[in-house]
Structures are given as C-alpha cells and as structure tokens.
C-alpha cells in the first residue's frame, strides 16, 4: 500500500540536515564578526560544507518535492556563495590601490577622450576670446549674470584688478566651504552624468565652459590685465579645469560605449566602460577638493603673479606626471 514507509526525500533530509545547520552557524559567525572569528576547524569545514550543500540542492531538486527544503537550500547556498565568492578587499586596501594604481591608470586609459574634451574646451575658449575681443557685447551672451559678479566689459581696469587680488572679505575656509557646492563641481558632475546620451550633452557642456573661460580672459586682457588674470586662474584652474576635462572624458567614454557597443550588448558595453569611467570620476571629485583648497587658501595668501603661475604650473605638471608618467609594465587596468 502507498504511504506506509517513510519517504525517501524525508530520509534524505534528516540525514543531511546536520551539515546544513553547521554551515548556517559558520555563515552567521562570518556575517556577524568576520572571518577572523572562525576556528581552524570551521575554516577547513567551510568549503566542504558549501559543496555538500550545493550537492544537496541538486539532489533535492531532482528527487524531492518538498518546497521547504528546496527554498531553504537555495537561500543557504546563495548566502554561502556570496561569502565564498564575495568582495574580499578591505576598504583601506581598496583606497590605497585606488591612489597607487586605479586612478592614474583609468586616466591614462581614457587619454583619447581626455584629449578630445580638452580640445573642445580650448576651442571654445579661443573662439569666445576672439569674439569678445572684437565685440564686447558677446560677453553678455556667454556669461551668466550671477557669475560675472561685476566683472563686465563696462568695468574699469581698477575694479577688475581689484577682483583678482581680493575676494570680497570672506576668509579662505568660507570660500572652501561654498566651493563644495560651486559652479565648477556641478559642471564636472553634469559632464559625467550627461555623457550617457551619446556624448552630446557633455560636449555642449564642455564648449559652454570653454566659452565662459575665454570671454572671462578676454575682458581682462582688454584692460591689459591678461598676464594677471592668467595667474589668478591657473593657481586653482590647473587642477579644476583639468578635473572638468577629465569628468567630460569619463562621460564621453560611457557615451561612446553606449553609442557603439561593438560585439557586446549595449548594457554590457556600458557596464564595462562604466568601471573605468567611475574610477576616474572618483578621482575627479578628489581633484575638485584640492582645487577648492587652492582657491580658498592659495589664492588668498599668494598674490604674487609669478608665484601663482609657479604653483599652478607646478600642480599641473604633478597631475600630468601622476597620470601619464611612465609606470611598470605589469600595471594594467
């Protein structure tokens, strides 16, 4: 008669249950207090228990109709899988590899995009410079009112000179604080984020940024303050504008991957490009941070033009060396 004996699947379950429970205990210990809390025996047992649980799962799927067991084994195996094949790098280690390897390598890998994005900025700056030089009215087209802050073609040379060496009374910390929410860090973020749409918004943003830069320089050079404004800009601009260019490059890298995925699917291509681009972007955030410090303190304390040029060009060459300088061959991203 049917149903007289104990079910095979039930016997299977009773026999194996002990080892499942054991695995569960170990997993709980790891998730709670980390790998270090395990005894030697437990560490040796972990892979064995994991494999036997996986095999239990296959057997259960093939022979048992007890949903409880299958659901349990699935979630237990998945949990063990995530621990055994999970992220095993500590945050500290991660941060140090980021600075030593990942960030400069990401910048180097995207050199083409960086070149394009620098070229766009430069092109726009030159264009705006020439336009504003010939007809100062162009200035009002390029420059948003709130950014100009009195520095218009109508202002006298004295007023303009004043703006280069005094920041309207607030001290360095205050400027640094407000910097974190400033125009340029927003531009950098947007340049990256908008790259998604096949690079086009990023390119427009970079051009726009270049226009502002060019027309800004133009009105100063009109009053023969060209050399001075250069110093004022370069001391933090070398870092900040470079950061924006890199952000644009990161955005374009993703945009390019989405537009031309090649052999991969668009999703795969985006995620492949995104890995490098987001590393670079993390670096950009750090650069903007430095730029903020330079803008807040450096520009306040250093009012000598040559020294400003020195610091600006110095930081620029440090960045260039850091990103594109020679490295050992085995370092590949």
């Amino acid at each position, binding site marked *: 008669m049917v149903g007289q004996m104990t*079910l*095979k699947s039930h016997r299977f379950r009773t026999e194996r249950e002990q080892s499942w429970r054991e695995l569960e205990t170990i997993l709980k210990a790891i998730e709670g207090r980390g790998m270090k809390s395990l005894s030697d025996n437990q560490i040796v047992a972990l892979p064995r228990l994991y494999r036997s649980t996986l095999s239990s799962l296959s057997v259960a799927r093939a022979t048992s109709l007890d949903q409880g067991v299958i659901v349990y084994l699935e979630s237990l195996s998945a949990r063990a899988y995530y621990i055994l094949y999970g992220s095993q790098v500590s945050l500290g280690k*991660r941060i140090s590899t980021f600075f030593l390897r990942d960030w400069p390598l990401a910048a180097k890998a995207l050199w083409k995009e960086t070149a394009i994005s620098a070229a766009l900025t430069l092109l726009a700056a030159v264009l705006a410079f020439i336009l504003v030089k010939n007809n100062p009215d162009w200035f009002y087209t390029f420059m948003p009112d709130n950014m100009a802050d009195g520095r218009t073609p109508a202002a006298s040379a004295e007023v303009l000179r004043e703006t280069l060496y005094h920041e309207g009374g607030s001290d360095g910390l205050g400027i640094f604080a407000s910097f974190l929410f400033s125009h340029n860090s927003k531009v950098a973020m947007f340049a990256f984020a908008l790259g998604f749409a096949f690079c086009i918004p990023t390119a427009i943003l970079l051009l726009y940024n270049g226009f502002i830069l060019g027309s800004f320089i133009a009105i100063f050079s009109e009053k023969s303050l060209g050399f001075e404004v250069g110093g004022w800009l370069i001391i933090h601009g070398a870092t900040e504008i470079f950061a924006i260019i890199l952000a644009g490059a990161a955005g374009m890298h993703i945009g390019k991957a989405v537009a031309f995925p090649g052999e991969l699917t668009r999703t795969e291509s985006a995620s492949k490009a995104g890995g490098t681009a987001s590393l670079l972007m993390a670096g950009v955030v750090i650069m903007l941070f430095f730029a903020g410090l330079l803008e807040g303190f450096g520009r306040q304390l250093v009012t000598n033009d040559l020294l400003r040029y020195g610091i600006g060009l110095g930081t620029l060459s440090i960045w260039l060396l850091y990103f594109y300088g020679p490295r050992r061959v085995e370092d590949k991203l």
Partner: protein
Amino acid sequence: MAGVISQRRVDQRRLITPEGIDLQVQLADIGARIGAYVIDQIIINVGLIAAFFIIIFGGLSAGPEVAITIFILINFFVRNFYYMFFEMGPKAATPGKRMSKIRVASRTQARLTANAVFARNAMREIEINLPLSFLFMSGDSVDGWISLLGLLWSGIFLFFPLFNKDRLRAGDLIAGTWVVRAPKPILAKDLASEKVDLDSAYVFTPEQVEAYGVHELHVLENVIRANEQQTVMDVAERIRNKINWSKGMSEVDLDFLKAYYAALRGRLETRLLFGVRRKDKFDKT
C-alpha cells in the same frame, strides 16, 4: 498562493556558481529598495544632525567658520562613504538593505568587487541629487526652461529601475551589479514527517494518489502551511470528491490533507526517481 509562485518566477534570475549549479536568485522588489533607501537616509541624516550639534557646541571657540567647514567635510565623507563601507562588507548591504533583507550582488559569475561597489555608489550622486538640484535651481525665464528640461532628463536616471526588467539603477548598470533578495534561510518543518501517527487511518489506493501532479502538491503544501480553516475545509472537500474518498466519522480535515499530501508526494517522488515529473493533473505522462 498561485500569485506567490508566479511572482517568484518573474523575479527569478539565473546565477550559475563555478560548481555549475543554478542558485536561482530572486531580484529585490522596488518596494524593498525604496524602503532600504529611506532607512539609510534616515540613519545618515540623523547621524549628521547629531554631528552638526556636537560640532556647533563643541567648536564655537574656533569660530563658526571653522565649525561649518568641518561639518561640510564630515557631510561630504559620510554621504560618499556610507554606502561603500557597508556594501564592501561580508553582507554587501547597508543597514537599510539588511532590514529589507536585500543585498548587492554581481550580475555575472565574477565576484562582487570593491570596484563595482565603488562604481554603483559613485552614480548615486547623479541619480538622486541631480534631479533634486534641478528641482531647487533658481529659475528665471530661460534658466527655468533649462532646469525643467534638466529635471525631465535627470528623471530618467531616477526612474531607471522601473523601466528595465532587472530593476537596475544606472549605477548598477555601470557597475555590473544588481540587488537581490537575501532572506534568512529558515528550514520549514517537513510536512511528510507528521504523518506517521496517522498512517493507520488513511490508506489510499494507487488510483487515488494518481489524481494530481507536482503543481497541485505544492499548492496543497501551501494550504497546509497557511492552515486557514475555511481554505482547508474547501480543499479537503474538493480532494475527497475528486478521489471518491468517503469522510470518516471523526476525520479532521487538516489530518486528511496531511496524510494525502504525504501519500501524493511519496507517489510523485517515486515516479521522479524513474525520470517522470508529472507537472500537474492534466499531465498524462
């Protein structure tokens, strides 16, 4: 109950381990993810407000400028590293995600790297803070239009998870990750183990246990586990009719169902061993 089963199927994704077994992970649903996000934001903001007061009252001697700058720095670091710190841990989940019983996982067979966690969280800024910054942008005539367009555009990022079948954020897409359910495994009692003391009363003929397939067995299992009086009564009635079982004098519906469940499972599992999986009652194999 059928609803639960089909929802499992919709959310189910393949995850093949290096050992070659499909673990069939379940995607986290949108509700759980919003819940996790809200909890995390509450934790971050309560923490920051506390830090704010500590700094303001502790740092007045150094002047308000210094205090505010320090706070902005803390704010910057906490907002950026909170998610990364927790998602790089063994649970790959922030406190909010843990409470919602979900976690971050790699979409491919490759392990979840710290890089991926970094990437998916670097995008967070853009997905959530970008729409907000457009929303609060000061708008005069032209800028108003630009910020409206910007809001629409950045809204694409915000609602991205709703428009793809794997519920990926833009950050997940880029990082090659997704968010899956991570329930605590609980081994439910085997229903077939309870039948021993019932055996003598319930003996089914082979024809009687031929009536149903695996699907019905699982529905029956759910009914017994839920143990709602009305449902148990109805289901017991249906089964009795189907298999021509005459109800005994002191027969309890639930006991009958358990006994029938055990018998049906025994029968179906035996056939399973011979390579026949009878899907449901319409399956004639």
